[in-house]
């Protein structure tokens, strides 16, 4: 147990306890105690005096693993660090502590060659599909872009593009189009095709259905599940849509202000959330059944600013169960069930 008087633990590594591997058969991706901090430039006189304010803690000691062929959903409100985690895994965001192990190769902050390898074996789908497509390239060129980056021989570029496009349910005729001529759903499919071009083991999908109509959302989700079944790719699915999480993910991890608060099998977590935040998140989701209207919002207030991170348990400012202990001491991760861990001093029953 850390000393309760130590004050707010700023990015102190979490007590090292590996997560129970859950459904993991072969670890594809292991994230260990990952911390991301960004320096906060102070005022001029502060900089001259060499007294910069403490850096912003975006992610604090995140430990997660992902098995081949499974879907892990990462949920949390905006500002919880979901996208930062995804970017860190892809080597787009430097991290200050911790490690990422992908297919047994350890990746730290430096070393371009290793990231290069990861980028060949893993792919990311960005939140804004149209904006993530280079606007001056044709769709055919875009989907084959990873192949040419990694110098993968492809007999006929057009044929390869056609194959990738038809894999995601688009007509090969689309190859000549430009990103701005695509609809939201089509652009999304193109990004999926591009992500699958190198036959990756892992696809990180950042809000893959944000801004899409329900029917298109259903098509994209079906596409992703189908491809997982056929190709065995693992997904790290980042979303704030709990209905989607429940529908497509095997396990879920809940992030709050850069801390993981609960990890477990989706069915277990949604049926019986143990962290008050997870419970509130689940209760906030408007039900499609008018008969089950909530009496009031399950959670008051908003996520605190990163500039003003609360000491102790980051969630205590909004938690109805918070005690003095929560206000001073960061909770540790504790297993509550097989493959189900929670970081809370007073977990729900």
């Amino acid at each position, binding site marked *: 147990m850390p000393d309760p008087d130590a004050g707010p633990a700023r990015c102190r590594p979490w007590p090292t306890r590996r997560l129970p591997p859950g459904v993991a058969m072969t670890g594809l991706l292991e994230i260990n105690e990952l911390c991301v901090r960004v320096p906060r430039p102070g005022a001029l006189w502060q900089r001259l005096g060499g007294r910069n304010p403490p850096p912003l803690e975006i992610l604090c000691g995140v430990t997660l693993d992902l098995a081949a062929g499974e879907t892990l959903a990462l949920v949390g409100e905006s500002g919880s660090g979901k996208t930062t985690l995804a970017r860190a895994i892809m080597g787009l965001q430097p991290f200050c502590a911790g490690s990422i192990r992908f297919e047994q190769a350890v990746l730290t902050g430096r070393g371009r060659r290793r990231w290069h390898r990861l980028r060949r074996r893993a*792919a990311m789908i*960005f939140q804004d599909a149209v*904006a993530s*497509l*280079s606007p*001056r390239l044709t769709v055919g060129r875009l989907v084959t*872009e*990873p192949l040419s980056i990694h110098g993968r021989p492809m007999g006929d570029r057009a044929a390869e593009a056609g194959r990738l496009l038809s894999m995601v349910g688009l007509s090969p005729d689309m190859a000549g189009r430009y990103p*701005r001529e695509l609809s939201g759903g089509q652009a999304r499919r193109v990004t999926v095709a591009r992500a699958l071009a190198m036959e990756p083991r892992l696809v990180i999908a950042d809000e893959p259905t944000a801004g899409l109509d329900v029917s298109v959302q259903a098509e994209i989700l079906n596409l992703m599940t189908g491809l997982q079944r056929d190709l065995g790719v693992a997904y790290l699915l980042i979303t704030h849509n709990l209905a989607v999480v429940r529908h497509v993910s095997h396990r879920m991890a809940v992030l709050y202000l850069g801390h993981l608060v609960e990890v477990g099998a989706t069915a277990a977590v949604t049926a019986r959330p143990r962290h008050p935040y997870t419970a509130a998140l689940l209760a906030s989701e408007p039900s499609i059944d008018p008969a089950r209207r909530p009496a009031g919002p399950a959670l008051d207030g908003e996520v605190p600013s990163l500039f003003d991170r609360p000491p102790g348990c980051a969630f205590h400012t909004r938690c109805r169960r918070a005690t003095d202990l929560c206000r001073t001491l960061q909770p540790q991760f504790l297993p509550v069930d097989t493959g189900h861990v929670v970081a809370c001093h007073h977990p729900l029953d």
Partner: protein
Amino acid sequence: MGVALLSIGIAVVAGTLIGLVAGYGPRWLGMLLLLVLDTISSLPMIMFALAVLTLLGPGLWTLVGTIAFFTIPGYARLVRAQTLALRDSPFIQAERSMGAGFPRILFIHLLPNVIGPLLVVMTMDIPVVIGLEAGLSFLGIGIQPPTPSWGSMLNDGFVFIRNTPLLVVFSGLPIVLATLSFTFLGEALRERLDPATRRG
């Protein structure tokens, strides 16, 4: 007119390179280049051009070099701003996540998106530089006689402005026509390019 095209061509190439480096390179280099560019644009162009041309002696290449030197900052700043706006955009992030290298990102993904607005500004600049060149010749420090120049013709006429005003009017007309036609050419080009760049 050859002077104008030549100097703008040089300025565009140099400005693009500097702008790309300033926008995509390390932060300190960007700031340093920005300071240098600001300094150049803070130098009063015509006065400086006057000084340079008299000191180095008037000549075609001195003229071209001076004009190019002073038009570089405009292009470099434009390219830098565009690059800065694009460097954190999702599609560049996506390229990086696929493992694309620096030259690939720079030349295949950034440059084509920067070149549209650059062309537009370029065509708008040609008439300005034509005017400038004529102006310098008018002051007697551009292209030297006996090479004929619209500006020096004007200067010959200006001496007699009160007696034969028509001389001035007519020797000024080609300049007006040239600058105007280039401008409207540029406008037409802009109208063709702009919707595409906007949507893209």
